[in-house]
């Protein structure tokens, strides 16, 4: 969507961006779970963020996340639990939402370095590292800092609370890598 990259961005890339956004939104159709003391639900949409980053690469991945946010802002109920509208951007989870695009970018960026590895096992491990770094560390960094800032709870407490997400997020990361590696055996997707 950026004008400099417009020349390199074909309709097929746009379609993949739209597809990535659609994937994230479709995962929102699965109801979220609210646990613990944090006002942040466990959702499958972060699985979508990891998937689009790892599959489509940094640019298309990040743009897919931004596309979802644009639709959220437009008021469409596309976040998990059917939430949407500018109200979301006044809520406690906005840090995570804003971290989606950087997270997908980080996953894709690292995956582009990792894809040169020839042995599937090593590549898989490198993909996992990329997914964990981008899809968990970067994502939570944004979410935690924002939450701590708006809720005046100290950062350590928020971090402790978000440990509740860790098992789920690790499962999502492994799932992402398993799916992408099998897809890669079928199609070659140049990351962009």
């Amino acid at each position, binding site marked *: *969507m*950026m*004008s400099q990259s*417009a*020349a390199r*961005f*074909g*309709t*097929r*890339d*746009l*379609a*993949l*961006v*739209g*597809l990535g*956004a*659609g*994937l994230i*939104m*479709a995962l929102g*159709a699965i*109801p*979220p779970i*609210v646990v613990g*003391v944090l006002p942040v639900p466990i959702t499958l949409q972060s699985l979508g963020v990891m*998937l689009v980053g790892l*599959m489509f*690469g940094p640019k298309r991945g990040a*743009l897919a996340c931004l*596309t*979802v946010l*644009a*639709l959220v*802002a*437009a*008021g*469409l*109920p*596309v976040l998990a*639990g*059917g*939430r949407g*509208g*500018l*109200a979301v951007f*006044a*809520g406690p989870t906005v840090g995570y939402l804003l971290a989606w695009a950087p997270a997908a970018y980080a996953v894709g960026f690292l995956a*582009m370095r990792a894809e040169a590895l020839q042995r599937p096992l090593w590549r898989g491990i490198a993909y996992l590292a990329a997914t964990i770094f981008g899809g968990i560390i970067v994502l939570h960094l944004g979410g935690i800092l924002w939450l701590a800032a708006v809720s005046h709870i100290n950062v350590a407490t928020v971090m402790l609370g978000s440990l509740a997400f860790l098992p789920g997020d690790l499962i999502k990361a492994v*799932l992402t890598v*398993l*799916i992408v590696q*099998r*897809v890669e055996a079928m*199609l*070659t*997707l*140049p*990351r*962009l």
Partner: protein
Amino acid sequence: MIGAVRRWGASAPLVAVPVGWKLALLALLGASVAFIDRPWMLACGVASAACALMLTGASPRALWAGLKGTTIIVGCIGLFDYWSHGLASAAAVTTRLMILIGFAQAVTTSSTVPAMTAAIETALRPLQWIGLLDAERAGLTLTLAIRFVPLILDEIAAIREAQRVRGLDRSIVALAVPLVVKIILRAQDLADAIDLRGPPPRQGRQPVAVAASAESRAQRRAARRACGAVPYDVSALEVGGGKRGDTAP
């Protein structure tokens, strides 16, 4: 979900309202509803959301079908809030959510997808003026994103149907892999169809003149990208192309 929502005939009052206004109103509401806490204001909000839903002209059954899932989740959130903050807070939180969701549903039910993305496209125009964005292509991307949600859900249903008819396979990966492969291929076919059926791309973006005379690989590649050539098997067409077909710059 969106896109799969039945849109009613042009006779309903809300259908006639330009989509841009509806979206702007929704955005305004989204920004302000969080600051409403007086019970009578919330009650007014609920009433007007209900009015908006009625003005779409859709049947109550169809509306409920669209709202059902969300209502259940909002109920869960309400329960949790009741447990942590008490009844008053829970009532306010759920009411606010329902007001927003009601209005959002009213807007989506009474607008067509193209109209909605056209409105967003218009809203993005200022960004194009400062050179940040190509509003037309951004609009197309949004359209596609909205289009893909029901498509993905359909595809999931189709795969599950096929799996049910042919035997059971419950693992998530066994569902996700064929799903992802299929929708990627579908996305690329759709992109081709858009190129073939769609509007003529604007002047200047397509390197027609360059590509016609150019011999350099890089320029050919740029042209191919612009034409939406097959990214996943570019290597198959190129002698000595990279094994994994990475054409990323």
